[in-house]
């Protein structure tokens, strides 16, 4: 079963590894860079920053997005902020502390060397984004402001109101747009990746589908970078945007890229609870709200009084009670499970009793409404638009929802997948967050990969290919892959069943949420592994896709994405099944302490599970990368 994967971690003490890599890597001289073409798929933080930087360096870059504009990528929806070890507050932060917090937050399941590099370059990201004009929040003296976030005891989070992701993405988008204007980046919008082409064991290019004309087309390049985000929409209901999907990384997986830790999914504790059966997505309320909001439920399950009539001593501020030192800022996985338990115990609030309160009345009393409005005004407005309730007067109702996926394509230290020449960056890879991601670290990782890691590591791969011929799109493998893609889309159209792709997606999402969501058990996972293939068989027999493949057809696009979610869902459940421990976002009911906290098994599971495609999604092949901790010592995560 086990091939030990080599992450190619550089030699030397942890703090020197990145410098050692840079000292030893192969370079491409400036005049030769234009001889290399790099294809970048996805234009979120990782994709846009990589495209801009590689083009500035002189490479030929082509960037692909399925959106109408690169500025729409889902990075834009991140609200709270971006971490960096600047220690501007003088409160004891350092590169080592950010590194340690990230490893601990990830429940000791991330790779030390990658995380340390992430903490090192975090400081450069802030400098770069400020130079580009990102309007981060400032103090009256004109210096940058910081706030604190879950899982940390220092204030290291930089933010731009509740729209940090938007401002960072627009910064990276503008930097890439500059290169488009200069002719250094060729932009393909409304163009979706449908497959990866591998020739002689290395990635030779991609096949795309034009979403306006249906044209299936090949693109060859020296290297391909997938920056296509996470797979949280496997749950159907999630905070991800509607079009977020797993197809690019899944198609790469089917061509030989190993998929690592698919069961590590993050359920975000502060989302607006589901209100109805036809709900299309869930909306996140930034975790930053937990800085000032207090989470509670009534002590008594039968308490139907409106919140303001429930006296203090009949409320259970359960996070403050259970985790006194972190309180309402306990990490996401811990807060989410605590909310689930409160609701499962019958003490949920709201018309469907499916939420918990996030109450700002103390903060408004202490700070005044104006300060609360300054900090969270746009979030409060958003809440009111969606629920029709005013959170200045009535506590918010929140409940956990799928938000982020720590798993993704397995990559080595250089961000290369198991297919030479194919890279994965940002949420699409698995590398930095272990079993749980800390708040404000996704933006940091996307920009770190795109700005400060890939531009260094990619030359190490490219340099030996200088002046050597690479397969172009006339190679028969491109024609073969194109034909397979055309057949697949024709197949969806020809089923002629009765159910829409959305219907299947919703049913699939329910199974994955119920059995591979916040809590997993052997029994449930085995049940899911029976139900998903059965539903998948029905999908192949009873799917209905209207329209044709030669013009805009959103139903057809959706069918392809749902197909891939089915296959991924089976591997997610198998990954959750073989990981006989609880860690971070992966909570197995069989493995918990007497107090109901996650019980890790470091002796047997301090490894990455990376799955190889076997041709049958019910029988993936398991590989492992052992995680070696040289600096950090395992300890039980405690936020008490």
């Amino acid at each position, binding site marked *: 079963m086990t091939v030990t994967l080599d992450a190619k971690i550089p030699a030397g003490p942890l703090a020197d590894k990145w410098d050692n890599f840079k000292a030893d890597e192969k370079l491409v001289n400036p005049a030769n860079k234009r001889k290399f073409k790099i294809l970048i798929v996805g234009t979120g933080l990782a994709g846009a920053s990589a495209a801009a930087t590689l083009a500035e360096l002189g490479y030929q870059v082509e960037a692909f997005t399925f959106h109408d504009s690169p500025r729409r990528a889902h990075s834009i929806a991140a609200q709270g902020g971006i971490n960096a070890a600047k220690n501007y507050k003088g409160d004891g932060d350092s590169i080592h502390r950010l590194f340690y917090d990230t490893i601990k937050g990830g429940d000791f399941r991330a790779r030390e060397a990658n995380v340390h590099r992430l903490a090192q370059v975090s400081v450069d990201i802030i400098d770069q984004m400020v130079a580009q004009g990102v*309007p981060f929040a400032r103090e009256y003296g004109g210096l940058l402001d910081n706030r604190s976030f879950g899982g940390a005891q220092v204030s290291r989070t930089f933010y731009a109101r509740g729209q940090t992701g938007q401002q960072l993405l627009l910064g990276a988008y503008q930097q890439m747009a500059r290169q488009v204007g200069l002719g250094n980046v060729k932009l393909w919008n409304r163009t979706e990746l449908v497959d990866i082409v591998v020739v002689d064991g290395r990635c030779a290019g991609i096949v795309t589908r034009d979403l306006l004309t249906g044209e299936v087309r090949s693109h060859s390049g020296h290297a391909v970078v997938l920056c296509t985000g996470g797979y949280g929409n496997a749950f159907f209901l999630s905070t991800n945007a509607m079009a977020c999907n797993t197809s690019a990384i899944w198609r790469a997986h089917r061509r030989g890229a190993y998929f690592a830790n698919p069961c590590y999914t993050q359920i975000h504790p502060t989302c607006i609870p589901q209100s*109805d059966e036809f709900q299309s997505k869930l909306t996140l309320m930034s975790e930053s709200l937990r800085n000032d909001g207090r989470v509670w439920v009534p002590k008594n399950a039968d308490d139907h009084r409106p919140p303001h009539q429930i006296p203090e001593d009949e409320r259970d501020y359960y996070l403050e009670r259970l985790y006194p030192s972190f309180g309402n800022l306990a990490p996401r996985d811990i807060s989410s499970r605590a909310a689930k338990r409160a609701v499962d115990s019958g003490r949920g609030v709201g018309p469907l009793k499916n939420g918990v309160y996030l109450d700002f009345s103390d903060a408004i009393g202490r700070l005044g409404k104006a300060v609360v409005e300054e900090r969270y005004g746009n979030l409060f407005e958003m809440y009111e638009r969606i629920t029709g309730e005013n959170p200045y007067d009535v506590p918010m109702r929140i409940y956990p929802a799928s938000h982020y996926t720590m798993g993704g394509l397995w990559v080595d230290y250089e961000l290369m997948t198991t297919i030479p020449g194919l890279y994965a960056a940002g949420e699409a890879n698995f590398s930095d967050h272990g079993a749980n991601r800390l708040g404000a670290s996704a933006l940091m990782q996307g920009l770190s990969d795109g700005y400060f890691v890939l531009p260094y590591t990619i030359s190490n791969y490219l340099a030996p290919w200088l002046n050597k011929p690479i397969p172009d799109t006339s190679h028969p493998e491109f024609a073969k892959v194109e034909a397979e893609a055309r057949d697949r889309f024709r197949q969806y159209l020809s089923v002629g069943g009765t159910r829409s792709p959305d219907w299947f997606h919703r049913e699939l999402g329910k199974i994955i949420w119920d059995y591979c969501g916040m809590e997993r058990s052997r029994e449930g996972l085995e049940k899911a592994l029976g139900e998903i293939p059965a539903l998948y068989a029905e999908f192949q027999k009873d799917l209905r896709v209207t329209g044709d493949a030669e013009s805009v057809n959103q139903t057809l696009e959706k069918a392809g994405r749902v197909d891939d979610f089915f296959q991924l869902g089976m591997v997610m459940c198998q990954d959750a099944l073989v990981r006989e421990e609880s860690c971070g976002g992966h909570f197995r009911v069989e493995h918990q302490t007497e107090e109901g906290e996650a019980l890790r098994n470091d002796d047997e599971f301090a490894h990455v599970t990376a799955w190889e495609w076997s041709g049958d999604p019910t029988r993936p092949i398991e590989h492992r990368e052992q995680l070696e901790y040289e600096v950090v010592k395992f300890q039980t995560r405690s936020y008490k």
Partner: protein
Amino acid sequence: MTTTLTNLTLKIWRQDGPGDAGRFETYQIPEISDEASFLEMLDVLNERLIGEGTEPVTFDHDCREGICGTCSLMIDGQAHGPQRGTATCQLHMRKFQSGDTIVIEPWRASAFPIIKDLMVDRSAFDRIVEAGGYISADTGGAPDANLIPIPKPVADAAMDAAACIGCGACVAACPNGAANLFTAAKVTHLNLLPQGQAERFKRVEAMVETMDEYFGSCTNHGECEAACPKEISIDVIALMNADYRKAKFKNRKALSRI
């Protein structure tokens, strides 16, 4: 608390492709919860149309949180519908009443050609940004972020302008089909900041002139501000016009030597 709206009539613009003449088609929504978002109501309609074997209504949408700017729609003649400061994706059915007839059209502007049904092509916005909507700062070599103190009011004003989501409601609402609010929001964001000064006049000139290639001219109707889901103030247009005038009158070569 949840109530159910009944007997809604939708008149939706259907157009098979850029060359098709297009027409309104009428659909009935017998009942829908007032907790549903406007786009979820269209999802319900589309699910029904697919079940009947007819093509669903094509419309652009993505984040459904009012931040990505993908969604559009003229709803009863108003860009993003009746709720001020709200993108279509965050409009909820509680803003409507049982028995209402709702007219749904795509953005109306010649610079945004219709692709299909309610989907339009807004790539002219990207061309404006590519012309100068950035600060030229290559990756690496940036000074420490706190070396450039920015007074809070300046940072706040830049952020107000930077909040633009690029949805195109300003253009759709404008009787002239002008993109001045969109362009000026980006010009203002960058031209207010110390980092943006080096390219201030080159930027405004390039962006305004690219904008003029695609869009109509501004005559200060103010419809854009009223339609903007981020409530960006029309004041940004004044700043852009002032900077453009300066850029045109000043000898920029001489200025760059100062």
